[in-house]
């Protein structure tokens, strides 16, 4: 169907305009009880989200199956503008938050999706407003940046939440002034890579008391509110951003002997305040944002989504959002291969409707039957080979897994993808997990089988648990 549509589209360009097998399809607009500003995919497949500003202490859980929202017990303080990550045991670590505009809270909490309860952890060294959480190979979590207050500025002290001891480790030899919500990644060598939005890039070694090493500079310059993703082990793409938004896109391969940023294809639309989402077939979906120079410029909304192909570096224009989703909007991959797009801040124009959500179904969901997974382990260790039952084994060309996402303010602090090795087996596939926890730190991953038509299965959720299955770090 996609081939026929493409051929028809080359003769009659308008023919592709609404063909979902080519441009995908957004659902009807759903009314939500708030503007989703933070969204975290839980191991049970539901989405924990919360709104902005004064409503930041009122989280909800959205069930993609029933498409219903349910209020969650409040953590007791405002977690808007905090950071979040899903720990190896499935609990959500939330650091920082909002006590006033540009003023952070020092709180850290765990949300347990099983019991629905909150646990207060020891406070961080200072308030953090706009920090970033990054999970380490051993399951600990590094918190970087975040503004203490306008008077005290950004917190320059990275801290490591040590899961086993329940204490903070201060990286006192790694103090540095970082931008808010720094785009941090666990690199293949076990260090953290600061990709943006400012330059230069840097590496953070979290051993002991920590240290920074300077890295390469992006070609374009600062990309404020330009999203980035790690689209393969050690390969990062950053797109758009800037005060006058750009359409340019850059990539870097941290596996190279001397990694350097270089341009890949540009989006059709300049944009900032967009979201970038990894898809099961390895492509990257960019949704929302503004092409205007004002901070959250709803007068220049970018409605069409765009899809980046990392193999070719080319972008394809997808279907359009129905409302402007810029600052304070989110996008999140769901286990069924669709993408949640929700929230935003603007509510002052007919172009905006922040208390809503819509679901994007990528073109692959209109390109034939989906492969199915009939069995998969619930928990494995790094480097382990495991059996995945499927009646479609002979037709599978890709096996991927994507870590559960946790997104806010343009940056998904958790999503990462690995392309897994596999071989045919009776009744299914033997699949091998990444060999190192540097490539897949402890936590939960959506396992997808992708067939030769590019159609993914619904995901099976697999926990990487090296404490049970052996521990391989660097």
């Amino acid at each position, binding site marked *: 169907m996609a081939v026929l549509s493409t051929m028809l589209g080359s003769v009659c360009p308008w023919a592709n305009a609404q063909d979902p097998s080519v441009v995908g399809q957004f659902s009807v607009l759903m009314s939500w009880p708030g503007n989703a500003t933070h969204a975290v995919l839980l191991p049970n497949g539901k989405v924990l989200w919360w709104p902005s500003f004064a409503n930041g202490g009122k989280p909800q859980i959205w069930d993609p199956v029933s498409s219903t929202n349910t209020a969650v017990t409040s953590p007791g303080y405002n977690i808007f503008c905090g950071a979040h990550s899903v720990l190896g045991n499935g609990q959500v670590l939330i650091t920082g938050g909002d006590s006033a505009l540009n003023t952070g809270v020092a709180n850290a909490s765990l949300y347990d999706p099983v019991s629905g309860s909150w646990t207060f952890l020891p406070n961080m060294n200072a308030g953090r407003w*706009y920090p970033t959480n990054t999970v380490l190979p051993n399951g600990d979590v590094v918190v970087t940046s975040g503004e203490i207050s306008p008077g005290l500025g950004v917190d*320059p002290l990275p801290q490591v939440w040590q899961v086993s001891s329940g204490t903070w480790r201060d990286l*006192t030899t790694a*103090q540095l002034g*970082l931008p*808010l919500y720094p785009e941090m990644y666990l690199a293949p060598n076990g260090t953290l890579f600061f990709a943006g939005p400012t330059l*230069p890039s840097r590496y953070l070694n979290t051993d002991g*008391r920590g*240290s920074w090493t300077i890295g390469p500079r992006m070609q374009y310059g600062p990309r404020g509110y330009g999203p980035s993703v790690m689209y393969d082990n050690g390969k990062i793409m950053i797109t758009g951003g800037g005060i006058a938004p750009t359409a340019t896109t850059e990539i870097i391969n941290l596996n190279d002997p001397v990694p350097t940023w270089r341009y890949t294809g540009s989006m059709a639309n300049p944009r900032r305040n967009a979201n970038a989402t990894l898809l099961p077939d390895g492509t990257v979906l960019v949704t929302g944002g503004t092409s205007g120079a004002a901070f959250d410029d709803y007068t220049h909304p970018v409605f069409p989504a765009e899809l980046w192909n990392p193999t070719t570096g080319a972008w394809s224009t997808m279907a359009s959002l129905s409302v402007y989703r810029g600052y304070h909007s989110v996008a999140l991959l769901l286990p069924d291969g669709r993408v949640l797009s929700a929230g935003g801040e603007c509510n002052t124009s007919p172009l905006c409707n922040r208390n809503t959500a819509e679901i994007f179904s990528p073109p692959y969901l209109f390109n034939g039957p989906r492969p199915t997974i009939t069995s998969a382990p619930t928990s494995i260790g790094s480097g382990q080979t495991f059996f995945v039952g499927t009646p479609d084994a002979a037709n599978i060309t890709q096996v991927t897994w994507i870590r559960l996402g946790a997104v806010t303010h343009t940056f998904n602090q958790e999503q990462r993808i690995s392309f897994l090795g596999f071989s045919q087996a009776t009744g299914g596939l033997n699949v091998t997990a990444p060999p190192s926890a540097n490539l897949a730190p402890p936590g939960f991953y959506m396992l997808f089988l992708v067939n030769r038509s590019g159609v993914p299965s619904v995901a099976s959720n697999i926990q990487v648990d090296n404490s049970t299955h052996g521990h391989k770090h660097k």
Partner: protein
Amino acid sequence: MRTDFSISKLIAMLVVAIPCVLGGPAWAGDGYAVVELGALRQGGSSVGRHMDSVGGQVVGSSGLTHGSGTRAFVWSASSGMRDLGTLQGGDYSEAFGVNDAGTVVGDSNTPETMRAFVWNAREGMRELSPLPGDSASRAFAINNSGQIVGYSSGKHGVRAVVWSHFELGTLPSRYR
């Protein structure tokens, strides 16, 4: 809410309101005039943190919205907002204190760490080293004798320090 009114207040309002029309201070309605100090970059943000005791100079930091391109500044009515730059190889700086001589203190990124700085118009920005063996330092205030207070950070943690004539020593016990 205060409702009293007087001729003197009317005069004060006019004194403030007339220059406001001309781009000067605005009347805040609570006995204070408010003056915008501007920003280093168009469309950017700025934060004032400290003012010398004679009210001539204000220091703080200014950058693009939400933390990009942050630079320390010193502001005066006659010169406006001045970018103090960064230490060599840095990409971030912020000022926290200024004395009556116009000497400014704060911190700046270097390529691989953060260091306290002292700045004056004649010599520019100079680094204030941390304690021996430490890697980072920050400075928050300077008095009219030129003494600077801040902290040094390293493998032993974070320790308050005073720089006197740019010679570093840990705080006397009475200050700890």
